[in-house]
């Protein structure tokens, strides 16, 4: 292949009589990465316009300039479709084409404009999501490129029923957003509803799926997240196959899953990678962790401040020795420690890893030990708070973990005002909210409220896969049957 040098500067004849060119020129007036190249061949002026920061120069050279201008030049063909060009008349489309990494070729004498697309490959390699690691199972994750993400899903589901619908969100950012679902499994009504809600988004910028989430979720005032965020293609795929809908936006490795229930936040890909008995145990453990994380400090405060009678005899004296001489009421004591833990956590996130660990040690060990010997906090309280903190981080979903950490503060206040009565009232409020909430028409607390006995097989328990012949009803799937008899070989003798 002959060498072809891209001209660095190229003065364009301002009076090129080309329709559409002036509009594009005006649109990209003050930006200096807008580039124009002019060539003359066969009495035809070829004018290339593109944004050099978006376009891949190698591809432009290799696929357009060299074939068109160099290789035994036989004149410009009438149709450029063989070079993946697209004839465009509308100047607005040309502008958006350039903004998406395209290159516009004006053939001035023929008064034609052709759009070619040579987007730059700007993406990091596929890695395991740091915040959603699994012990076993696939270790790939979504990246910031939408096409790569969709192809990761398509590689997993090789079915024509896999449907992708694009939407451009953000008046200025024009973020390409894909709504993905399985036709024939997902309920089209929910797809319509999602698209209806998306169509109302009129902000000028979509930073992340968090934006979309806030615009389309049912109850924005609720503490509970109503869409799941995931960076795992396998999790997204499993949800697609259960009849749920995925929303992925350009520029973010996070996919949104909807509609979801409360219990979906306590499922992890790991559950399906290991065998069903340990998975069931671990899943139960997570629900226990939910209860511990929201009630344990409140429970302890209620006991210490109101209900000494319920402390076992063997425990009362160590407990009493521990709280003797603590200057603050238990509520303040608990707040102090909870806030310390939150500070350590927040400080640890943004610091570089080696320093983050140091913070953990300094915070956890040094502060924990020093506050007890200084007589500020009782050591039982340290145990309670540490247990609570660990429990809150057991949740596989980061959003739900935040929620759980927040719910316990009002419960602690209630417990310190009214003891067990307050704690009970607080829990009643929480559960009323859980029962009342909906996510895209699905009751948030199903299959418990309303009770769906058949769906329980994949909520509290993780029943064997060959028992799960039906998809969960709480995804409102239109095709309930998943498999017939995957262990049929047990009944039939081999011939």
């Amino acid at each position, binding site marked *: 292949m002959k060498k072809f040098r891209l001209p660095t500067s190229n003065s364009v004849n301002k009076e090129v009589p080309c329709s559409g060119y002036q509009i594009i020129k005006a649109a990209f007036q003050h930006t200096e990465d807008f580039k124009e190249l002019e060539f003359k061949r066969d009495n035809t002026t070829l004018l290339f316009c593109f944004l050099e920061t978006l376009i891949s120069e190698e591809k432009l050279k290799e696929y357009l300039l060299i074939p068109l201008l160099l290789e035994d030049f036989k004149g410009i063909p009438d149709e450029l479709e063989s070079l993946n060009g697209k004839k465009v008349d509308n100047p607005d489309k040309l502008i958006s084409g350039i903004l998406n990494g395209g290159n516009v070729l004006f053939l001035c004498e023929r008064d034609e404009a052709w759009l070619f697309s040579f987007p730059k490959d700007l993406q990091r390699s596929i890695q395991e999501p740091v915040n959603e690691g699994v012990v076993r199972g696939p270790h790939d994750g979504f990246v910031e490129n939408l096409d790569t993400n969709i192809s990761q899903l398509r590689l997993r589901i090789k079915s024509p029923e896999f449907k992708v619908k694009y939407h451009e969100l953000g008046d200025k950012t024009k973020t390409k957003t894909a709504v993905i679902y399985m036709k024939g499994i997902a309920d089209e009504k929910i797809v319509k509803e999602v698209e209806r809600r998306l169509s109302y988004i009129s902000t000028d910028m979509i930073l992340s799926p968090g934006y979309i989430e806030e615009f389309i979720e049912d109850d924005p005032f609720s503490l509970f997240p109503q869409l799941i965020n995931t960076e795992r293609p396998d999790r997204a795929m499993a949800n697609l196959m259960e009849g749920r809908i995925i929303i992925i936006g350009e520029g973010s490795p996070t996919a949104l899953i909807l509609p979801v229930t409360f219990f979906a936040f306590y499922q992890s890909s790991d559950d399906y990678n290991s065998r069903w008995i340990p998975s069931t145990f671990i899943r139960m453990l997570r629900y226990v962790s939910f209860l511990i994380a929201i009630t344990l400090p409140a429970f302890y405060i209620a006991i210490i401040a109101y209900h000494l009678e319920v402390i076992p005899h063997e425990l009362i004296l160590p*407990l009493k020795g521990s709280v*003797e*001489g603590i200057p603050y009421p238990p509520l303040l004591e608990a707040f102090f420690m909870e806030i310390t833990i939150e500070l350590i956590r927040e400080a640890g996130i943004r610091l570089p890893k080696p320093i983050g660990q140091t913070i953990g040690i300094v915070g956890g060990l040094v502060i924990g030990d020093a506050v007890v010997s200084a007589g500020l906090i009782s050591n039982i309280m340290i145990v309670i708070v540490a247990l609570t903190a660990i429990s809150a981080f057991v949740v596989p979903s980061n959003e739900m973990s935040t929620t759980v950490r927040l719910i316990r503060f009002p419960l602690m206040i209630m417990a310190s005002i009214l003891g067990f009565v307050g704690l009970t009232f607080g829990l009643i409020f929480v559960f009323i909210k859980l029962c009342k909430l909906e996510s895209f028409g699905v009751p948030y607390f199903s299959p418990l409220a309303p009770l769906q006995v058949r769906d329980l097989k994949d909520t509290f328990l993780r029943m064997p896969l060959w028992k799960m012949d039906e998809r969960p009803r709480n995804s409102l799937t239109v095709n309930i049957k998943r498999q017939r008899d995957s262990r049929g070989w047990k009944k039939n003798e081999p011939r």
Partner: protein
Amino acid sequence: MIRILKISIPALVTTLLLSACWDQHLLKDVKLFMAASFDLTPDGKILDELTSPIINKDQGGGTVKGHTVTSGIGNTPREARWDIDRKTDKIFEASKLRVLIIGDELARKDLYSVLDLFYRDPKSSLSAKVVIAEGMAKDLLRLKTEEEKISSYLFDLLESQEIASLIPEENIQSICAEMFDPGEDFVLPYLRAAEDGKTASAEGVALFNERKFTGRVLTGDEAVIFLLLDGNAGKSPKFTKKIVESETDNFMPQNFVSFNVKKAKETLEVKVKRQRVIANINLSLKIEITYYPRNQLYKKQEIAKLNKKLSEMLTNDAVAAIKVLQEANSDSFGIGRMLIAHYPDYWKQVDWKKEYVNVAIIPHVELEIIGHGIIE
């Protein structure tokens, strides 16, 4: 949402202002009393003593070093408590009470007048064990035991003897119903402080008539067989019986057999025949031999002989126990209750407290050896 806020914010604010709020009862501000005694003073007042552990605050939580005894006197138990409260440094807290000891002088007068204090207070510790002490109850609180806490010493002592079935397992709550039941009387453990003032020992079963201690105590095998007949026995009742009389040898253990009761099943049948109440108590025991130096258990007829012999001996014990019970006029088998249920007409016309002495209570103990340890 705004509507909810409009309601909830004033609701929360008013809750904070209510007088009951912040009415906390912090563990660190209370003084825990773990054992209590009530006695009758010679001038008819009530003497209440309470022990509280002294807690050492150090790095690893609390350790106990000894205990303090606080006493108060009043016309009523409540007044005595107030007297103690005046002498206490922190907030008075008796909800963790483990052992309640009552002197026999006071128990002979009326037990309920003491317990009324506990039944009225929602915070009182209903699971505390109630015990009758020989002599003054306060002497038991002032034992110089090796243990740090007198309350746990007494509690553990009672618990171990409950398992051995020498004393009944009773607490403040469990005797309440029987105390008010005209057809049944309750029993309580009976403790005695040793002469040296260092230990206490469980003596047996103190018998009550209505609310009053009768002064009669079942001890030893009689207490155990009584609890078995009553269906109130602990996990492993133990007996040691002398089975051979005629030996002249000085070496005695040869003449004895010891056994544990593994399973007990008792049935109480009450009949009224010609205006006379007959109560049959059948007790069938499955026992395990734990000591038998004569060592002939591989012989079938030897086992049968032993079965018969021991059954007879235990029946005799039962007869003796029932005799004491009837003399004390304590209907702790609940025969009256059976009459109320099955013979209401008879019950209405009879003066049960007088008639009880004349009831024919016939015990029949059936015994079966099912185990003999790991050697035959």
